[in-house]
């Protein structure tokens, strides 16, 4: 089974294999970002703009705001979870309170 990812309801959700897995409105700590001037962005996720799979990672570009400095925009690709075994399709979300490193790429992206 291939892993099926999409964003739903105007970017409110990331759905993985037809199950709503990642929601907006959480805070993420983002390190080494050019998103804003902060050493560590305290990032409020407001909408998922693009989602993709870079096996085993489920990745997304997220619209939102750093609540420390107020800068808003869209992040680079951020790993939001993993589907380690595509046959079972089981999704493991990352702990968003820990530090994340947004990067350049998702292999197979699904635009909006």
């Amino acid at each position, binding site marked *: 089974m291939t892993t099926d990812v*999409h964003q739903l309801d105007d*970017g409110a959700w990331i759905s993985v294999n037809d199950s709503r897995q990642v*929601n907006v*409105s959480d805070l993420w700590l983002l390190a080494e970002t050019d998103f804003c001037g902060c050493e560590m962005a305290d990032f409020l996720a407001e909408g998922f703009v693009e989602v993709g799979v870079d096996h085993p990672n489920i990745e997304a570009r997220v619209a939102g705001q750093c609540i420390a400095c107020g800068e808003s925009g869209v992040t680079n690709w951020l790993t939001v979870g993993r589907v380690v075994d595509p046959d079972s399709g089981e999704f493991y979300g990352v702990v968003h309170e820990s530090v994340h490193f947004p990067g350049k790429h998702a292999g197979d992206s699904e635009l909006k």
Partner: protein
Amino acid sequence: MPTKVEGWKDELYGNEIRENLMEFAEEGWEAIPEDEHDAWFERFKWWGLYHQRSGQESYFMMRIGTPNGVIKPGQLEVIGEVARDYAQGPADNPEFGPAVCDWTTRQSIQLHWIKLEDIPEIFEKLEAVGLSTQQACGDSWRNIVGCPVAGKDKHEHVDAWPVAEELHETFKGNDDYSNLPRKWKVAITGCDEGCGQGDINDLAFEPAEKHGEVGFNVRVGGGLSRKEARLARDIDVWVPADQAADVAHGMSALFREYGDREDRFNARIKFLMDEWGPEKMRQVLQDEFVDFELETAGEDMRDKYTYNSGGQTGHNDHVGIHEQPDGKYYVGLNVLVGRMGAEDTLELAELADEYGSGEVRLTQRQNVIILDVPEEDLEDLKSEPLLEDYSPNPSPFMRGSIACTGTEYCSLSIVETKNRQVRYARWLKENVELPADHEDFHIHLSGCTASCAQPQIADVSLRGMKTRKDGEPVEALDIGLGGGLGEDPRFADWVEMRVPADEVPGAIRNLVNSFKQLRGGGETFRDFVEARDEETLADLVEPEETDYDDPYMHNTKMTWYPYAEDDDMQSSPAPTNGQGEPIESDD
């Protein structure tokens, strides 16, 4: 590449969905194949059903579209009964009790906690009295909005209700327009007060005179969602009332053909308007989508618009008692944040029958209007107990409050909204005094940037955010000032960001006090804001803790229901079966 949603819509969309919906309802929640949930939930929106947020699986929000907010005699009772019998969830809201009706900012009705299994029965009851959920959500012609007292108002130039009704009948269930790139929102105004709110709709008809005849000027491309608020723009077209439907056909066909189906965030016609401008919009409409020569714009009446104009004269809303042209009266009642318990709704239906014609209207400020009350019955109506809670003469802070759905049910939300706004309004009423010449003071709270509560057109705009307080994440609000409609509509300036929610009432108090001290003679709040730059205004806001107490500071979105005794996500009873009993999950 077209989006996934477009793919699902290509397979099946519009009227046809109903058959599948009914089959699923007969068989029960578990009949929807798990790997087709997303596709079906997207499609169900077209029939007015929106799957509620996480922790509330198997429950739906149901929207009933009442064009122009018109609830005909006999309909309100059925709405109240459906709410009472089907809209009660596994936990109650502490402010409003079990089973409520929400009157929305687009003159529709929302019910929550609807179970799939009950839908056939509900549809039967609604349809028996001419109500429907069709196209209440989804990529379609949405509920048509307009002046809520159309046909009943002394300021009227065209009775816009027959036009709204004609459009409703033409475009509801019309397969030619059932699959649009995105939602399509239409407003019709017939009076010189401007209460149709055309400026924030995709397509607006506004009263204008040409050749001695009152018809409509046409504006296109308004909308508030995301951080991309736009006012509808004048495309220099006038139509007589009997051709409004032709132009509506043309414009919605233009949208169907040229709207962006590759990117849902860029799909609304406001973005096509950004790209084309009004001249090209008019040209393409003329060349490809209508078969008669369009007239240029007529003389509009915008200089008379008082509705939400900040001018403190005329109709700022429709609350209060006003004479109709036929000598009877309409009585506008304030419904705080637009939410009314099912029992109160049934009581309202009874009063409307007893004192008026039974007809009730919904306003775009989440309030209700009882129509056709004879003068001699006004005093008795005013002394009915229901009017103590839903007053025709409320405090400006009560009548001016609007709030969206928020974390209670909505997936996009960042903060709790309705219960918080109820507490704000009560606190402000007790603790803040507006200048005597300010009867209208609008405070709109939206839980996210989708802007369902229309914050950008309020005196004080509140938008859901987060911040940290003593290191801990708390619910917060961005504060904007000075928005409104009228001849020259104006979106709020966002002046103070990420204010912890418990410091917002203090901020509003300090702002109002500064306004009273610093205003010029007779200066309205809106003029006061317009005359000052953002920095000056930010200094006047001054967030502050007060004796206002906010029980919703924690992350209410992390709960399955913010007001449940045990609100932990893991304690959610959802999904449930047709009897509301938890369904054992297999993992």
